[in-house]
């Protein structure tokens, strides 16, 4: 164990990202299922206040179990089962997902058994999303989408049903990893679809904003997956393994859009998965302290990696990606630092003269830093909600995100 390891766990002025339990709820919100957080109190309030923009506009069956000390100590899981079953019988959701906070994790609640019992009692597909409240939303939402894909695959079969792209038809694509935690402006989902269609792709499903469970069930009939945030990478890897659907990670912003679309086509053709922005970033990672003028983007790696790539393409100057969320494997350059805790974040961001990040990170940068604010709902929640701008603007010739300096 690293000496003074606790220093990566202390925060004296910065907030933490949305947690894993909220991530689960966010990912499954629109699909007609029922999500139960096995937690005493607080998770639901936190989620609907700080981590969810749809709560007052779109009904969803998201509930808390209200776990008590007595039930935890006595192992009374039957109450959880009974409560879920009675609610399920009333609402008849399309599926049931159970996530949990630390105590059920600590006491080793047998969620597989709970799911089996619920499913047996009400006949509705039930799955557990492994959480313990100690991780960020990329882990929770990522695991939720993966479990959902697994559930759907039981129904739709294990066969990859896409035909070769050579017959001249449009390439079919699933968009993976889209939740309001990263794509807060709802029109972004529609505009991304529009941009892809304009580029000659056919969008089969978007995981998971705006599409129904039925649309998501069409996922095997796809040539390629587009991973638009790290919440989609686990599912993409699984689909690659199970269905041989390759993936490309990135979002079409500005000058990088062309690279991404090209990469997506190439990916379908060559069956090689990658993050489309990585190559550019590998060549331009400027984390070293001897760099004259250093700039970076910081936050969720797929989105900020794409924005960094766009910057490089625009002016030819280097730009680093500083991932601040948890899921980074194969999504960040090898040399990219992955700071944990406030001190490390300050140390890393403090090297840069120009930083693009959420406004709450402004204070972690140098005072003379040229700071470009890009509010991220999963970090600053409602604080800068009115300053979150659409990432995509298909109507303006795919120009994408427009930058505004402080």
């Amino acid at each position, binding site marked *: 164990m690293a000496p003074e390891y606790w220093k990566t766990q202390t925060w004296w002025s910065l907030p*933490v990202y949305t947690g894993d339990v909220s991530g689960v709820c966010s990912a499954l919100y629109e699909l007609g299922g029922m999500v139960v957080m096995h937690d*005493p109190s607080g998770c639901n309030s936190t989620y609907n206040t700080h981590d969810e923009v749809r709560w007052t506009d779109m009904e969803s069956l998201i509930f808390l179990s209200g776990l008590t000390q007595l039930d935890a100590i006595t192992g009374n899981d039957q109450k959880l089962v009974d409560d879920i079953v009675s609610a399920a019988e009333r609402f008849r959701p399309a599926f049931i997902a159970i996530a949990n906070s630390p105590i059920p994790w600590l006491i080793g609640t047998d969620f597989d058994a709970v799911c089996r019992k619920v499913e047996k009692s009400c006949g509705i597909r039930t799955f557990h999303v492994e959480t313990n409240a100690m991780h960020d939303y990329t882990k929770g939402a990522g695991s939720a989408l993966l479990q959902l894909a697994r559930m759907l695959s039981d129904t739709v079969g294990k066969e990859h049903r896409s035909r070769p792209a050579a017959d001249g038809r449009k390439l079919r694509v699933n968009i993976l990893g889209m939740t309001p935690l990263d794509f807060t402006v709802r029109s972004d989902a529609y505009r991304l679809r529009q941009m892809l269609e304009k580029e000659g792709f056919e969008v089969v499903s978007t995981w998971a904003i705006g599409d129904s469970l039925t649309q998501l069930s069409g996922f095997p009939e796809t040539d390629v997956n587009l991973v638009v945030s790290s919440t989609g990478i686990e599912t993409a890897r699984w689909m690659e393994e199970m269905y041989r659907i390759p993936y490309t990670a990135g979002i079409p912003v500005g000058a990088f859009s062309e690279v991404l679309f090209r990469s997506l086509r190439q990916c379908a053709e060559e069956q090689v998965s990658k993050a489309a922005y990585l190559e550019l970033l590998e060549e331009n990672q400027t984390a070293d302290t001897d760099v004259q003028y250093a700039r970076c983007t910081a936050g969720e790696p797929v989105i900020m990696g794409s924005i960094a790539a766009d910057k490089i393409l625009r002016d030819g100057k280097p730009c680093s990606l500083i991932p601040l969320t948890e899921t980074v494997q194969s999504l960040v350059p090898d040399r990219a630092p992955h700071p944990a805790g406030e001190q490390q974040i300050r140390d890393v961001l403090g090297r840069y003269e120009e930083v693009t990040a959420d406004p709450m990170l402004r204070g972690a940068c140098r005072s003379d830093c040229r700071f470009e604010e890009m509010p991220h709902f999963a970090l600053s929640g409602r604080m800068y909600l009115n300053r979150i701008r659409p990432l995509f603007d298909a109507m303006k010739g795919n120009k994408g995100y427009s930058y505004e300096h402080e």
Partner: protein
Amino acid sequence: MLKRVTKSNPMVPEGVRIADASFPLPFPRTLEYNAPAHGTWNIVHIGMAVPESHSIYVCSDNCLRGVVMTAAEMGCSDRFHSVTIQERDVQVDNLETITIEGVSDVIAHLPDKPPVVFVFLVCLHIFTGSDEAYIFRELGKRWPQIRFVKGYMDCIRQKEGPSPDMKLRMAEFTIIEPLPLKPERVNILGGDVPFEKDSELVTLLSSRGYDVRQITDCSTFEQFLALGDAAVNLCTYPNGQDALRNLSERTGSRYLYLSAAVSYGEIRSQLQSLSEACGFDPVPEAWIIEQEEACEESLRHLAHVLDGQVVVIDYTAHSRPLGIARLLIEHGIRVECVLLDIILDEEEEAFSWLKMHCPGLMMVATVHPQMALFGRGREILEEGPDGISRDVIAIGQKAAWFCQTGHFVNMIEGGGLWGYQGIQKLCGLIEEACARELDYREIIPRKGMGWPSLCAVPGSEQSGCR
């Protein structure tokens, strides 16, 4: 595993006629929905009310998110800090190392060391058997100039014994040390909504020469500590009772709980108790009669203005929702629904009266899963005996949400209303709610009424997320 001998309840309807309701828990526990009405204070607000205090939460990310963002939205990020718990911390020891070292690391980074720090422990500390005494002893040794106060965010004990809110209020006032008592000093403490200077309770005291202080009068830690010299401590908020009783025992002050009563008899009795506790002459009967007549006039006027409109009350607006229901019904006002999840002991009399005289009054659970359906409160009313859709006046944010109405009294925890004047002001607020419509979707998701709210609300026009 241990087996329960009682069966858990199958899901019951979200509403029950009061005639069929049990006391004090009208609804069995089941899955819980959470309405987007957040005007009430949470433990962050309560802790921050102590001037110059800092709060450090030691908890896992997902649990931390709600409190860290609460602090940010209320503009108190500079007094809020956190230490996150990871799996290894549970394996290394019983969270003692991460708590001591993490809190110390946070404090080391603070440019000015605060006089008092609330360290919030969580459910994990309890379940891993953390040696809390050791943690606080060690912190005290390392930072002798700081007073460490144990706070809890132990949600798992929320429904069994004192809630984290009640325990924090207790902790808050344990900071205050006994001082020589000053007979002219009276504290009104334990609640979150301050009484106005011209409120009945304050004027009753100040007009008799008493120096009335509330926590909102304290802008420095020193002023907060000076609250220990009051001869009398008054509490009007149920969750503050234990804290104020404890404070009074330690300081030797007289303690009096003056519930936010809404019946003339109870108010009379409280006035009597107040005069006895503070040592002033009983309030003149003529004044009492005059006030009761003024209340009657306000209620008559309200009934006339409402003209048969339905009133729905929720428990977040006032600690006496059933008492208010009774008061309004007795004056010819149509209260058809009270939203609550439990009934406080002090409401037992109102409960019994309503059970006997208004058996059809609906009691509706705010956390019941069925309430996740938008406008469910209004639907319940429409499913009533005559099935008529009616305009609804809501008292409280949750009532506004469930009835989807902008005609609501935007009030939490009694709104600083007390006594006869409280009744008259409440009538005025209901009339105001009747006359104008507020943007409830923009107002009610904001946290902690009375604190700044530095955020935009999803769904509102300016949020830009549509």
